């Protein structure tokens, strides 16, 4: 990578002058087309199999959507069968909200999670939750901001439900025992998200997700919900009429398959960060491998916006072993500027995330980034500037940032951090209605795995809001719909159709999905986990 060498760039940074913004020479649309990774021409292809045949999709995701299954009928001979009303797949914020409400509504609930309850992107979320509660703000402004930031590609009906739910979502979280940062009068404090018109993000330090997950995990553990840890789903099942009717669990503990038959299934499996699209580092959890998209797609669920992903502007660029680690937008919200290797401000830091990321990529591509070595460049996040204008704010409101600085050997109150965009969020996903119901009967999808709320770009705080808002909606509806007749026959018959279609389209059958774990974990090599592989 070209750029300004580190020491030179640091000298530019330190010769501090008041920094005014360079006049932007590019409109957002033009900037995104030229520099946002979504628009890299060679990264997209057209899907050849499934409900989205003909749609544009990221190449790496397409590989998994059009992959062969991990199992076939023979693998399930003799597998034990467990029955329940509602099966929730995924143990993050969305899964917990859905499971808690379903259980409260009288359903028997099993929650199957690939790793442990709470291991999710939710626990890592920092910035906060959007809820219009301040005097100058309204749900209408929240709706307008969300749609505008998503380039008007979001589904207004879904966003409308979410913004109207928001204040009650916060109340519900408080009732689960979640704390928020409060001012001297006990009011919820709010900060502003990039690309929005009001201070609307409520938060707990930069540990909002951790605090949320602590409370939800404890609620789930103290309920009648049956939690299955280390139980990844390798396939969904359906009944004689194509209604989703359960899932096949591959049990890490004893390497066996278990069939869970359910009246309704709620997928809450999160996103795709660990696919490292376009070779970007990621801010995501170890388990974020897009499993839910693959499972739902195979069963016939329609997906959307498969070519749109969020690269968060401020991932840590250096040191290498921490590359991609998230630095919350709350830091820019508190006033931190972004500076290039010449010490110049090059973007309004509180524009939408896609715009700010593209602007950083532009600086680096055009040689104005801070260059560390052939592979590493970035721009400065001026944390000392925030501390100067508001002494004590870092320690008080952004302890996770300070902790990250410790790990890098940098005191962010004195030294700026080097940042570069990091793969953060899947904007699209499974098409849902206002109950989180997909186009497959009996299959609900909530949280990051679903699509339609964020359009082509998400604003800070709408993800944590979505997981609770739609998690609760799906949990309630799934419980209501669980009193019907049982299924006559529950199978993985849809795989025959899948394999036929793959063969007709001439797709390679070597790749197996879902991915389950990142390649680096060497999971397929591990004899301990024999149960995951297809028996020969």
């Amino acid at each position, binding site marked *: 990578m070209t750029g300004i060498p580190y020491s030179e760039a640091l000298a530019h940074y330190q010769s501090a002058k008041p920094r005014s913004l360079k006049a932007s020479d590019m409109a957002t649309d033009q900037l995104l087309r030229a520099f946002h990774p979504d628009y890299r021409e060679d990264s997209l292809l057209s899907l050849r199999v499934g409900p989205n045949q003909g749609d544009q999709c990221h190449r790496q995701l397409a590989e998994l959507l059009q992959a062969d299954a991990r199992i076939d009928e023979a693998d399930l001979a003799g597998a034990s069968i467990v029955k329940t009303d509602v099966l929730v797949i995924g143990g993050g914020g969305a899964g917990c909200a859905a499971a808690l409400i379903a259980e409260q509504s009288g359903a028997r609930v099993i929650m199957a999670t690939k*790793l*442990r309850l*709470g*291991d999710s992107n939710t*626990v*890592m979320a920092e910035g906060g939750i959007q*809820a*219009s*509660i301040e005097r100058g703000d*309204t*749900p*209408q402004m929240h*709706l307008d901001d969300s749609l505008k930031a998503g380039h008007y590609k979001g589904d*207004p*009906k879904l966003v*409308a439900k979410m913004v*109207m739910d928001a*204040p009650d979502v916060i*109340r519900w979280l408080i*009732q*689960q*025992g979640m*704390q*928020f940062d*409060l001012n001297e*009068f*006990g*009011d*919820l404090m709010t900060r502003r998200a990039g690309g929005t018109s009001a201070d609307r993000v409520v938060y707990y330090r930069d*540990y909002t997700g*951790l605090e949320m997950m*602590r*409370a939800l995990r*404890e609620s789930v*553990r*103290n*309920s009648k919900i049956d939690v299955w840890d*280390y139980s990844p789903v390798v396939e969904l099942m359906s009944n004689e009429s194509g209604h989703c009717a359960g899932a096949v669990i591959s049990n890490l503990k004893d390497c066996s398959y278990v069939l869970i038959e359910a009246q309704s299934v709620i997928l809450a499996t999160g996103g795709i960060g660990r696919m*490292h699209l376009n070779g970007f580092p*990621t801010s995501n*959890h*170890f*388990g974020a491998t897009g499993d839910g998209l693959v499972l739902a797609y195979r069963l016939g669920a329609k997906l959307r916006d498969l070519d749109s992903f969020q690269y968060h502007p401020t991932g840590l660029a250096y040191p*290498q*072993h*921490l*590359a*991609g*680690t998230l630095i919350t937008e709350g830091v820019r919200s508190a006033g931190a500027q972004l500076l290039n290797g010449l010490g110049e401000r090059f973007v309004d830091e509180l524009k939408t995330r896609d715009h700010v990321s593209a602007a950083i990529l532009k600086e680096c591509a055009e040689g104005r980034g801070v260059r560390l070595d*052939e592979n590493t460049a970035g721009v400065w996040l001026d944390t000392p500037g925030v501390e100067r204008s508001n002494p004590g704010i870092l320690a008080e409101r952004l*302890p996770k940032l300070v902790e990250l600085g410790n*790990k890098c050997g940098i005191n962010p109150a004195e030294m700026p951090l080097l940042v570069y965009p990091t793969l953060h969020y899947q904007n699209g996903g499974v098409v849902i209605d206002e109950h989180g119901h997909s186009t497959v009967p009996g299959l609900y999808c909530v949280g990051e795995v679903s699509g339609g709320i964020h359009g082509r770009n998400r604003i800070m705080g709408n993800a944590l809001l979505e997981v609770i808002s739609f998690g609760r909606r799906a949990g309630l509806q799934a419980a209501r719909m669980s009193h019907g007749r049982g299924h006559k026959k529950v199978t993985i018959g849809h795989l025959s159709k899948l394999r036929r279609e793959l063969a007709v389209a001439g797709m390679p059958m070597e790749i197996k999905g879902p991915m389950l774990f990142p390649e*680096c*974990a*060497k*999971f397929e*090599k*591990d004899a*301990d*986990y024999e149960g995951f592989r297809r028996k020969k």
Partner: protein
Amino acid sequence: MTDRHDMSEMDEKLVNVKIDGKAITAPASLSAIQALWYAGYPRIKSVGCLEGVCGSCRVLVRRAGNPEVHTQLGCQTLIEEGMQVMFLVFPRPTHHTYKLEDISSSWEVQTKFHQIFPEASRCRECRGCNASCPKGIDVMRGVELASKGRFREAGELFVECVMCDLCLTACPELIAPNHVGLFSRRVTAYFHTRPSNLIRRLEGLQRGKFELINRDGKPS
């Protein structure tokens, strides 16, 4: 944290460590988990956020020339020459169970606390919890404060707690100190967080004050 470890870091200093009994040589900039992967060993269990907030990767660590064993988080532990690392399995979940809804008022919290956590007042001050905490929390003080009914203050000590359960493993009295901390935080929110800006907005919504209009001017 990145999971790519092919890297251009080959020129970097290599160190020798033992992880789960396996001798591994890897670059010094890697965490214990990354070093395992780097050496080609599989690891799924006890891996989570890789950022130090999910509490999954509990490890025992012994450093060269030091007989002491410390408990840490594997993703946050950078390898050093001569270091020995052992992954810990998760303990059985705590036997304490409660529902916030079952506490009828804030007057009842203290009594309920002692019913739910009867062991908390029997702390023998061995400091095992403090020694085991990878976040440096004064866990023992938190338990003491909670036992005396100072739930807000107790909870404040657990801001950084990631529920790794290491203190639960360490406590000989089976107090489950992290759950005591979390109980303290939860009752504080449940009984005392009453933000007027939120309440005002909830009232407004209930009265139908905030109808939405679509871009085409029609009601949503």
